[in-house]
């Protein structure tokens, strides 16, 4: 998922990256529409960071496409003539902000992020939950894909109803497996001295 090698941006302290990202997003949000030069500066800054962090273009564009429902909605609102923000301003703002977050996500590992959150006095229970979620989301995503493939291999109808029932039972099984794995992880944590 993170295909980024070493870059100067990755080398910065994680706290700097997070605070910097928030600052950039805040600035972009607060920049009034009447100051296009500000936008240009922010956009340039982020573009430099994007390139420096070696974010693949296709990935960036794909993420950008996910913005479209909201931008389209805002464009519609503008077309209907109601009071609202100019959709071009919206698009510019959200693109700059999105690019910032992408750079952050590509150059910051989960451990670094958790370190920043720990320093920000986020409760331990949430940090543990975040760490475990990140650790096991790939495992569960793999299990889900495998179960889906196994079901597809045994599916001979093309009915949508069957597809829904199958998908639902895959998700149900996923929850059961996640619960059972949670028990085993607890045993493994205790086995190495974890005291809750």
């Amino acid at each position, binding site marked *: 998922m993170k295909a980024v090698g070493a870059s100067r941006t990755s080398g910065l302290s994680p706290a700097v990256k997070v605070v910097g990202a*928030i600052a950039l997003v805040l600035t972009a949000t607060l920049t009034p529409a009447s100051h296009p030069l500000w936008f240009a500066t922010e956009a340039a800054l982020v573009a430099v960071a994007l390139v420096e962090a070696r974010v693949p273009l296709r990935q960036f564009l794909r993420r950008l496409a996910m913005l479209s429902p909201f931008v389209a909605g805002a464009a519609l609102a503008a077309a209907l003539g*109601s009071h609202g923000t100019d959709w071009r301003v919206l698009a510019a703002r959200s693109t700059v902000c999105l690019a910032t*977050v992408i750079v952050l996500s590509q150059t910051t590992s989960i451990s670094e992020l958790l370190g920043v959150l720990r320093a920000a006095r986020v409760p331990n229970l949430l940090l543990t939950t975040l760490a475990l979620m990140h650790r096991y989301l790939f495992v569960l995503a793999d299990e889900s894909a495998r179960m889906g493939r196994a079901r597809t291999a045994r599916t001979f109808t093309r009915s949508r109803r069957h597809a829904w029932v199958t998908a639902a039972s895959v998700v149900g099984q996923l929850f059961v497996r996640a619960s059972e794995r949670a028990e085993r992880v607890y045993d493994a944590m205790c086995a190495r001295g974890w005291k809750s």
Partner: protein
Amino acid sequence: MHIPDGFLDAKTALATTALSTAGVAYALRQVRIELAPRRVPLLGLSAAFLFAAQMVNFPVAGGTSGHLVGAALVAALLGPSAAVVVLATVLIVQCFLFADGGILSLGANVFNMGLVATLSGFAVYRIGQRLVPGVRGRVAAMAFAGWCSAVLASVSCAGQLAWSGTVAWSVALPAMAGVHMLIGVGEGLISALVLLAVSRTRPDLMGPVTQVQASGRARSFVVLGLLASLGVALFVAPFACPWPDGLEAVAGKLGFGARALAPSAAAPLQNYRVPGLASPGFATAAAGAIGTLVAFCLAVALSRLVVREDSSRKSSHV
């Protein structure tokens, strides 16, 4: 429904961040008190489960497919406090590691999907489940709860967009709520089918994971529910009130930027016309009521369809 950055103004971002921080902090505190130590990893694993579950395709038409959001489902499976923590975790990871949803709008996303969706889903599920015992009741309750959670979260989202001045309320509400009344059908359907699948394999996994008395659970739900309701009221009330003159008077008294509120409040009356209905406020309410009734009937129909009550099997109480 992940709101990206740039769509909410600073005051909305601030308000939503404050509300969701309070809500998540309270939920964390409750979970720490209520959760048995051996269940702690279940929070993280459930968050991972939800993330993976959200990627499963439910084919709709052509090449499109629906996906589960899962707030109501997780609330039904784990209880309200744990569900808030799980949803917040998923949203935080999605924001910072997958750039899904903005940083400044994380507060709003957690509020909508982590508080409004989970708590409304939980409430509807529990009430429905109490009204109709047995598997059928659970399925119908879950389906309706999933629908409600999607719609209410979208209303909250619309309120935030309007409060920010990004999209007028008169456009935001019908657009968001209208779309989510449809999406909600998928959400309800998927949630119900998944709950049924779990109840058939491991019925012991159903029900809240906390070991506290029902009264304790009710208390956390009430506190969190109040917080969510307060937030929704904050975002929606300025626009939902059908008496703009009264609103302006109130705004003036409270020293609100009446300038900011008044145009948005007046807009629904000017631009939104439903043929045949005199008052647009009434039209919105009527549409909402009809939609809710239809969803409720669909939920009941679903339960009859998927649960074939075996006369020899006793219906089990959870």
